[in-house]
């Protein structure tokens, strides 16, 4: 972990120092993104000019307030992907509800998938399982089960792990669940969006002060916006690995 931080600092030291805008802030997390596994259904959907994505998640896929839905990462993902894919109708729908474990989400998956018929299911989970210390075998089984349901409904899957939350770190043991998600992602050959490491990197570099106590929404909104953008990068690059990376213009 520290190795990566040092590496990033080195890259920053060598790079153009005039990177102060918001998009550049987000870019700092980009190296954490892996694109080892393809997303064939998404590729097909892009070729057909119609991409439908379903985000399944719990409380950390939400923002409070009246404009919460507009500023949370699912909506930001939609905007960022639409910008990357001109001419493609990008639509992101959500099945998001706070305080759900992976197992609880799986029970509502068939209905949600049948309603949305997505080419891609983005699945954010792990936090609530860690908070309730769900048995890790059960957690892994739920993940595998959910991935299989999505695949048989004709959707690719991207997993998103927990947020990095430094204040509550001594209360929620995320490590075990993050590891188990990584293993399931590897074995099922599913891309993992490592939200935890990206946010940890932002905290280490001072991009965002994730320790701060505030009722204001501005930082939370910027974090969600960055997550949406990086997620769009992951989806785009996994689905279209041959095309040049569309980040130079950002």
């Amino acid at each position, binding site marked *: *972990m*520290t*190795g*990566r*931080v040092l590496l990033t600092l080195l890259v920053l030291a060598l790079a153009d120092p005039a990177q102060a805008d918001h998009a550049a802030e987000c870019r700092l997390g980009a190296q954490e993104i*892996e694109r*080892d596994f393809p997303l064939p259904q998404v590729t097909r959907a892009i070729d057909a000019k119609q991409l439908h994505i379903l985000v399944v998640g*719990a*409380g*950390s896929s*939400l*923002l*409070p*307030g009246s404009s919460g839905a507009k500023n949370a990462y699912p909506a930001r993902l939609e905007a960022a992907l639409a910008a990357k894919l001109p001419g493609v109708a990008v639509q992101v729908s959500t099945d998001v509800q*706070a*305080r759900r474990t992976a197992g609880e989400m799986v029970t509502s998956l068939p209905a949600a998938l049948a309603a949305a018929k997505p080419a891609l299911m983005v699945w954010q989970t792990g*936090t*609530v399982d860690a*908070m*309730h*210390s*769900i*048995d*890790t*075998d059960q957690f*892994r089984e739920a993940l595998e089960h959910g991935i299989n349901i999505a695949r048989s409904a004709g959707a690719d899957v991207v997993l998103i792990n927990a*947020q990095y*939350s*430094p*204040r*509550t*770190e*001594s*209360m*929620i*043991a995320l490590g*075990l669940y993050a*590891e*188990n998600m*990584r*293993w399931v992602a*590897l*074995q099922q050959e599913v891309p993992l969006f*490592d939200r935890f490491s990206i946010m*940890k990197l932002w*905290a*280490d570099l001072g991009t965002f002060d*994730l*320790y*701060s*106590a*505030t*009722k*204001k*929404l501005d*930082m*939370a909104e910027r*974090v969600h916006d960055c997550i949406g953008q990086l997620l769009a990068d992951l989806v785009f690059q996994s689905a279209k690995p041959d095309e040049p990376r569309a980040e130079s213009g950002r």
Partner: protein
Amino acid sequence: MTESPYERKAVHGSGTERDLRLDLFRGIALWLIFLDHIPSNAVSWITIRNYGFSDATEIFVFISGYTAAFVYGRAMQQHGFIVASARVLKRAWQIYVAHVFLFAIYLAEIAYVAHSFDNPLYTEEMGVLDFLKNPDVTILQALLLKFKPVNMDVLPLYIVLLLWFPPMLWLLLRTPSVALVTSAALYSLTWWFDWAIPAYPSGTWVFNPFAWQLMFVFGAWCAVGGAQRLSGWINSPGMVGIAAAYMLFAFGIAMTWYFPRLGVFVPKFVSDIIYPIDKTNLDVLRIAHFLSLAVITVWFVPRNWRGLKSPLLWPAIICGQHSLEVFCLGVFLAFAGHFVFTEISNRLFMHVVVSAVGIGIMVATAALISWYRSVERGSGPRPPSIQPGYAEGGA
């Protein structure tokens, strides 16, 4: 640990002097556990869990088993089963009290966080504080060892291991091989039937005692003569070669956790076999990694190594000699360290300071306890036949 005359004789005469390597490596394990327990601690990249499958917990449990057999085995031989068992149970009670004390500190920390922290980004995560709304249930479940906060799983494991230890020790002193086979059988049955101890509000214990007892009993078995039986084997260059190769393999795999791009070099069938690496049930890969580490350590650090008397290693040795106190202090200091990160600064410099100061406090406290015990023993009113400190000696 005391220095009563009995301690100079090992249970089965495996030497005339206390093996300082045990104290040294237990002391180091305590430091590593402390560093790992401070959330987000950048200094924890030096700890062994980042470079292979096993971590300091295996070292701690193994050495604790070794010293428990060493101390209570002698008590059992001299004073019989009842007296030795009573001492083991007294020790378990002390650990229970220590655990409850740490839980009180934990409650104080989280009540503070609940009171002071708010951020719309973390609405979900703050739900973890909900249990403060019904403290009656939570505290009761904590006293029953079913509700265990993060990083407070080792002491409950230790308590259960000690409760099961008297009959095991009895068996170890008669037929060590049968005892070890019994322990391994329990381990295997646990994997076969998924035996576990339930936790509150859901899930199971993070360290499954039915599985982890194998490491403890293996340590005890080594103390009652097993180590000597294995010595020819352990010290053979072939064995060291195998151990080194395995450590290298584990190192390579561990690197793919931190640099996921290296993952392409791990064939799928390998990852299908090794994952999940189950810490709760003491995965075989972890045992093998610990054994490799032990073989290599014993190869480089012989029992009579002169460095063991060097003042450079004294801080680790003294911590290893007062393991319960230092362990509990480490848990507390990890809470305090996290508090410093959240309230004062979380820059890299602060990580280094908190880690170094924490270890300094651990060493100073261990030295103070040593001094205190020696004063008590030297001028205490108690007759020497009671052997003060015997039962609480670092087992």
